[in-house]
């Protein structure tokens, strides 16, 4: 796997070195290689900036591919013990206060997670972009002294939360440093940015994402700070069972 990733990077570097002629598909593929993995274990904190104050919610996530995910909230005490399990397109949450497991589906998936600017769908929809979108290169731009491609992506499959998106992709890191997520009508719904890029297990990965719901006028955004991340970790199958929610 490591070898293959290195090869991809070498090929991409070679391709760019020739005359900068890298295909759009290759850019997205490289971006997917950075962001997606067979599995990952993440310890992170979500800082939700409200109108008056901010809340910090710490959690640990176990993710395998695009279909299995388990999240356990660690703090603050009010949220500690809350768990979420995603199996395919279904999501269950467990709240220790009520000692109940609730399935979240349909329109509920569009509601924000713990008052943040991220919806349950945002958390669940993590399939590789190459499978979901057709991309067009709109141009290049320099931001903060770094070169970026501007890609416009349009859904090639039905049922995506965001049928259109525009991404500013760093030419060295192959990461969407800024993204605009649009509705079918073309209305801007959300923006996301990332920073604190560092090398983690031979891939570039951001240590902070910032999401902003553009429909909420007073939204100050939600930060998602990655404290620790481990790619391709061995995760036992039992982690993704519904029984685990109550443990």
């Amino acid at each position, binding site marked *: 796997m490591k070898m293959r990733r290195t090869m991809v990077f070498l090929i991409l570097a070679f391709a760019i070195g020739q005359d900068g002629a890298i295909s759009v598909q290759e850019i997205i593929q490289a971006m997917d290689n950075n962001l997606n993995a067979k599995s990952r274990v993440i310890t992170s904190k979500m800082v939700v900036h409200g109108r008056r104050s901010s809340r910090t919610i710490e959690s640990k996530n176990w993710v395998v591919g695009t279909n299995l995910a388990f999240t356990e909230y660690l703090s603050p005490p009010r949220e500690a013990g809350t768990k979420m399990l995603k199996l395919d397109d279904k999501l269950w949450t467990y709240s220790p206060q009520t000692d109940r497991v609730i399935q979240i*589906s*349909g*329109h*509920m998936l*569009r*509601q*924000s997670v713990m008052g943040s600017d991220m919806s349950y769908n945002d958390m669940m929809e993590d399939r590789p972009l190459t499978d979901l979108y057709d991309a067009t290169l709109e141009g290049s731009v320099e931001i903060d002294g770094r070169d970026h491609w501007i890609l416009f992506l349009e*859904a090639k499959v*039905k*049922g*995506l*939360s*965001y*049928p259109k998106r525009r991404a500013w992709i760093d030419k060295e890191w192959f990461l969407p440093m800024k993204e605009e997520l649009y*509705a*079918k*009508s073309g*209305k801007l*719904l959300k923006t996301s940015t990332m920073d604190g890029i560092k090398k983690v297990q031979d891939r570039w990965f951001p240590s902070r994402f910032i999401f902003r*719901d553009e*429909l*909420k*006028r*007073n*939204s100050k955004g939600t930060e998602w700070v990655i404290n620790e991340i481990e790619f391709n970790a061995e995760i036992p199958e039992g982690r993704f069972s519904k029984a685990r929610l109550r443990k």
Partner: protein
Amino acid sequence: MMFKIAIKNLLGAGLRTWLNVFVTAISFFMIIFISAMYDGMREHAMQVSIDTEIAGGAYWHPEYDPMDPMTFEDAHSVLPDAVMALVDQKKAVSVLVSQASIYPNGRIMPVIMKGISSEQTIVNMPTQMLVVDDETTIPVMIGTGMAKDAKLKVGDSFTIRWLDADRTYDADEGTIVHIMETENFKLDLNHIWVPLAKAQSMLAMENEATYVTFAKDVLPSEGNGTWIHRDIHYLVRDMEAMIEADEPNAAIMYIILLALAAMGIFNAQVLSIFRRGKEIGTLMALGMARSRVVGLFTLEGGLNAVLAAIMTVILFGPILWYFNTYGIYMGIDYSEGQMGLIIAKRLIPVYSVGLVLTTTFVVSIIVLIVSYMPSRRIAKMRPTDALRGKTAV
């Protein structure tokens, strides 16, 4: 003769009789008045629901459950032929239901978005106001309660966000074209109304609907496929259940009032048997059968109910008439649904013949029972003891 004696004795007791009669009359009045209020509430809720929402009944998509918004996502399809024919003949109106989020003044509010034909005349809603020339935004009609909650007025624009049939997010600008005054909070709270064709195009559900409401004179038809026919009785059952759930509270009050009246009469009967021992002895010594003496005392007690009925008509009749004519101002405007019931701003009680007869019968029976119970003691008395003034009470 017995009746004359009974009346004479009753009136002879003076203030004691009139107090008993007054308390019984209050019981009469309260039972009739409160029951009539509940009947009025039920009738008003029914009339408003039928007028604005139910009409003659409905056909529902098999997945549709109005109490469970989670079902809305799958509760839509093209209408069955028979139902479609009713819509084409303008004997029915189809409604497409979906969940959505609106962002008035930048705040997020989950709402139920309903698409309805602007030309419909089946339900009493000002849907014609949804016809506008401007096609750049989505014309939206809301109720006064929703307008108050979302702080919206005619001409205000806000973003509407929804999930279409392909489960894809979409969003666009909506503009308030009309704020409707409705007593039916179910059409108002957390609801936005848009033209049916617009809703179908927004949701990518061309020619589809969630339910169809048909006119009052239309008979349920065959050939409605898997769609479920819901009659008026079914559609108002929640409303009726809520009113019924509240009725035990009123029943407790009736029981307290009746108990007060019954205790007064019981007490008066016990006292009169104790005080009128010599009279009882004389009557029995003169040959009056014990059963007739018991009957006399029971009749005296029972006449309380008759006098109470007359007093109710004289004292409380004008009050009942006034409320029936002008209604009762509820103090607070419950019409926006805070109570979870359709309640008129001025509630008009409904006095039915059945209600008056039932109340009279129940109160009379109770009064007769409490009059008879102490009178039974007379049957155990010996005339000689009674003449000496020794009573068994």
